[in-house]
């Protein structure tokens, strides 16, 4: 970079500096601190893998559950969000499209902790879901079961994240060139086929962004598993809070934190690779 350009832009960088410092000090520094202290053995004062050994001995099942729940929720969010966004874009009944547009966004800005509270009463064994199904004669009272375990978490995640992903994807679909869709329609292609073969490839970057952001959001949710999953297995965010709050044990908690960073890092890497393969830079 040549010096005149740098000198011209120095004021701009100065304007940026306070915000950069803030993120650096209050996010990047604790993040690095957490990564490093995952390897700290408080007993010996040295650095080793003992925290990870203990983390897996105590919470190995929870690590698997966390991965499973977040992946499944992300996949469901993806499928449903594409379906909703697709109908909003390709739907031919204006009234149905308007109704759907009005409905789908409601959960978007509802905080996770509130969503968890809603689902906690809704999905309980004698909650509204089962009561309604029983009244409709769809299930027998004896078969009623509580969904307040990993399934409840998946339901809550999907309920909460679907509007976000659908909004982003519908936005991308709306800004597409419609001529191709219409000519395919003219040739008699079904809407499902148009969605999958024409629309989806063009908005895939947005789909990935929304899914990866959803994945990370779900990975960091503490309140949802804390309120919905009674007992075990649970998600590792709850285990982290438990180690820290009950024992002041930051070692094992940071080891679990390391695992969650690694998972989101893998997602980010996957996304960047996807972007490179498609020849464009990530959106």
């Amino acid at each position: 970079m040549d010096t005149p350009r740098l000198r011209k832009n120095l004021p701009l960088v100065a304007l940026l500096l306070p915000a950069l410092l803030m993120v650096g000090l209050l996010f990047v520094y604790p993040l690095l601190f957490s990564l490093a202290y995952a390897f700290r053995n408080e007993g010996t004062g040295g650095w080793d893998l003992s925290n990870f050994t203990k983390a897996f001995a105590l919470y190995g099942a929870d690590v698997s559950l966390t991965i499973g729940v977040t992946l499944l929720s992300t996949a469901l969010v993806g499928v449903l969000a594409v379906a909703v966004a697709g109908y909003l874009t390709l739907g031919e009944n204006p009234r149905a499209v308007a109704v759907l547009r009005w409905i789908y966004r409601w959960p978007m800005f509802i905080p996770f902790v509130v969503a968890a509270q809603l689902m906690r009463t809704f999905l309980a064994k004698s909650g509204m879901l089962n009561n309604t199904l029983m009244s409709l004669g769809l299930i027998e009272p004896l078969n009623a079961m509580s969904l307040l375990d990993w399934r409840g978490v998946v339901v809550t995640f999907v309920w909460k994240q679907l509007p976000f992903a659908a909004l982003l994807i519908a936005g991308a679909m709306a800004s597409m060139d419609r001529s191709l869709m219409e000519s395919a329609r003219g040739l008699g292609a079904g809407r499902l086929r148009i969605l999958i073969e024409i629309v989806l490839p063009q908005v895939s970057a947005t789909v990935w962004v929304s899914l990866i952001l959803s994945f990370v959001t779900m990975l960091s949710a503490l309140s949802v598993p804390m309120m919905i999953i009674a007992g075990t297995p649970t998600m590792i965010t709850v285990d982290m809070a438990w180690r820290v709050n009950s024992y002041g044990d930051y070692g094992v908690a940071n080891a679990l934190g390391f695992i969650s960073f690694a998972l989101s890092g893998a997602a980010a890497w996957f996304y960047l690779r996807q972007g490179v393969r498609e020849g464009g830079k990530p959106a």
Partner: protein
Amino acid sequence: MTLSQYPLPRYQIPGVVGTLVRYALIGLFAAAVFGPLLNMLIWTVAEAWYFPAKLPLRWGFAFWTKVFRPEAGAMKALYTSMVIACLTVALSLVLAIPAGYALSKRSLPLRSLFLLFFLLPQAFPTVAVHMNIARIFYGFGLTGTIWGVMLVHAIQGLVFAVWIASAAFAAIGEEQVEAARNLGATPLRAFMTVSLPLAAPGLMASAIFVFLISLDEFSGTFFVGVPDIRTLPLTMLNAALEGNYQIASITALLLLVPSILFMLFVERFLKADVLASVGK
């Protein structure tokens, strides 16, 4: 695209059945979206609800008076939440307006790298970061204070504030600023009289968005604020874990109203393209 090269079969469902299926699906979707909300509304006015009753045995507002009595702490939590949210908005805007302005200039070196940097707090799970912030803040006496909680909230809000501000400034044409400069205005004056007012709707939107983020923030407050600072989400968690579903539901309703209002009015403040670029 290979579509035009061969004729396609038509998968058309006959009209009436299609309409029925369409409305059944939309009805099911509506039930899935609104069922949990309706359930919560019922809990807010249920005074007694034992097994095996499918609906409350006694309805009424008894728990509302319980929540809003001064000793219960819900009003105090509401007040604490509001104070923290306002402080968070102020701090985020003070940082985000200059940063967003700088990022709106294409000439800024390493611009996309800086934009990505601000995305970091959204790109990594926050729980592990928050517990370490709490540990670091102990040393500065910030754990358990309004200021500590405000800083944690501001980090979460800053991403959106910076990105929305940058989009808002970028949407302003250069011509008007140039015109002001040609009339002899200093850069600061041009910024204050031209750029800032033009970007104000976007900045207002980002302020509301940050306000909501702060109002709803959970895990940062859980680690940094508790037990001294108790915001509404924490009060709600407490009530829920104590099995006070009515109190939890009423608190949840208090948190829901601003979120839903924002959802319904967001498009007046934010154009869809700006909103869609948020968090990208």
